[in-house]
Structures are given as C-alpha cells and as structure tokens.
C-alpha cells in the first residue's frame, strides 16, 4: 500500500482494541473459509481502512489494525465464514479494487505466514 500524505492511522492502535471483536476468534477451526486481502503498492492505506470500516462495519481501530497487517505482513485474513459468504465479500472487495482471495482455513494457524507479493504475480524487477 502507499501513503501519499501523512501516515498516522496506526497511532491510535491499542486505544480501543477491547471493543473490536478479536480476529483470532474468526480463524477458529469450525469456520471453514477465509477472505484474504493482499498487499499491493497502489492502494492507499487510508482507502483500505475506509473499505474495511464502511463495508465490514469494523471500528476504525480494527480496520487500521487489519490494514497495517496487510501492509506489513503482505496479507491479512479480514473475514471468515462459509464459502458463499467469503466469495460474496471477495467480489465486493474486487469492486473496491482491493486484491482479495478466498482460501480454506488451515485450522487455527492464523494463516498469516505468507509474505509473497500476492496471488499469481511475482515481483518483477524494473529495467
């Protein structure tokens, strides 16, 4: 993601974490599919946070936390549910221009170990 003006959304992290639902509970083994958002160098950090807040109804704190996870770790599981649910979310995310994929939950690992540039495209070198 990219910052075009001032950074800052992450400065409030931790203030209201108690009010946001825990992302850990969403990756419980009984929930079979995850919606993953991948980092890319184009989408604005503010825009990604706006999409998480307006579409999922997440608090600013939670939206920024997930956005920073995408930015720093390369990907983040932002929602979970049935296959149909996460597929519907994925289409909505594609509508917003975010890079979303769906995957089967791997069973409680959290699934955030991936740090590749994203699905299907490697990092091309310039020149």
């Amino acid at each position: 993601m990219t910052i075009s003006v001032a950074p800052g959304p992450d400065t409030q992290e931790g203030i209201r974490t108690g009010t946001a639902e825990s992302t850990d509970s969403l990756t419980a083994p009984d929930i079979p599919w995850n919606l993953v958002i991948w980092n890319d160098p184009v989408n604005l950090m503010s825009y990604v946070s706006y999409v998480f807040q307006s579409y999922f109804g997440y608090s600013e704190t939670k939206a920024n936390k997930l956005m920073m996870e995408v930015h720093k770790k390369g990907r983040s599981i932002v929602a979970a549910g049935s296959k149909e649910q996460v597929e519907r979310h994925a289409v909505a995310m594609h509508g917003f221009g975010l890079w979303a994929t769906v995957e089967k939950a791997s069973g409680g690992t959290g699934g955030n170990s991936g740090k590749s540039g994203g699905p299907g495209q490697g990092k091309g070198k310039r020149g």
Partner: protein
Amino acid sequence: MAKAFKYGLKGITGFLEPAERELLRSLIDDVISMLQPEDRTGQDPLAALIGLDMDVAEPTDRAVKRLLPNVVKDDGAASLEFRQLTERSLRETKIGALRAAALDLDKDEIVLTPEGARHWSMALNDVRLVLAERLDIRDEADAEHVHRMQDWSQAEDVESYLALVYNFTTWLQESLVQAMLQSMESRR
C-alpha cells in the same frame, strides 16, 4: 489548480480546472473501455440475463487482470469457475462507478453525496490501478520512484507524463478518502 476534496456543511466538495476534468474524463473512459464486456453473438441469452458468462477467460492484459483478479490463489480452474458466475456483474459495478464519477465532471465544483463519494473513490482507485500497471509499479520501491516525479516541467516522455498523472490521481483520491473518513466519523 485543483482543490483537495474536503468535508464541510455541503458534504464532500472538490474543485477541478477544465483541463483536469478533461484528463480525468479521458482516463475514466479508457478504464470503461477496458472493462466493457465483448459483445458476443451467439451467447445463451438466458445465461446473459442472469449474469452468467460461460465464455469468460482469465484476462491477458495485466491491467485488466488487476481490475478483475483471480479469486483463488494458484488455482486457475476454481478462479475461472468463479469468473463465469461473477465477472460480468463485477464489470458492471465498476463501470457504474466510473460512469457516475464521469457525470460529476460536468461542473468545476464537485459536490458529492456519500454514495457519490464512494463511486468516486472506486473510480479513482481503478484509474490508479490501470496507470500503475502501465507504469510497471510492482513494489513499494517502484511506487516511491514514481511518487518523486512531481514537476510538470520535467515531463518529457510518456512515462514521466504518466507518472505525473498517477501522482495527481493519487493526491486527489487521498484527499477524497480523508474527507470520506471525516464524514463517516461525524455520522457515528
């Protein structure tokens, strides 16, 4: 010069010079033409009616593929199946937002409802995604390299011109999203 979008009593407002509006209009038109589904004769009319597209294929143009990405990583078959069910309506959603934004370009002063602002932010994002592919922005270092290009007097080739256009749309989208976040905050 364009004025950044801001949130105030009238809602979200912005101001663009005629040349800037012309530029945005042509960028939006370009993206719309990339998203317009091919007119296929002989397609099952019932399938078309319910948005199914059995002839859909993974886009070969990288920019189009970025607008309409695969939904399952490393699984072309599953992604293709999903495209058959959803790609047509995704294209229509995107074209709808782009057209809505283009309609607002008829006046210097742009006044946006929350819905209009959402359309604008989606349209600007798609325009930027396409420009970024043309500029070969692959990682944050590429983005930083392009971001350093700020002086229109330096624009001497297509790439530097595109970089300036990209930075203009980035600046515009950032100001819009900040205004939208403020507006959302005030409604809470």
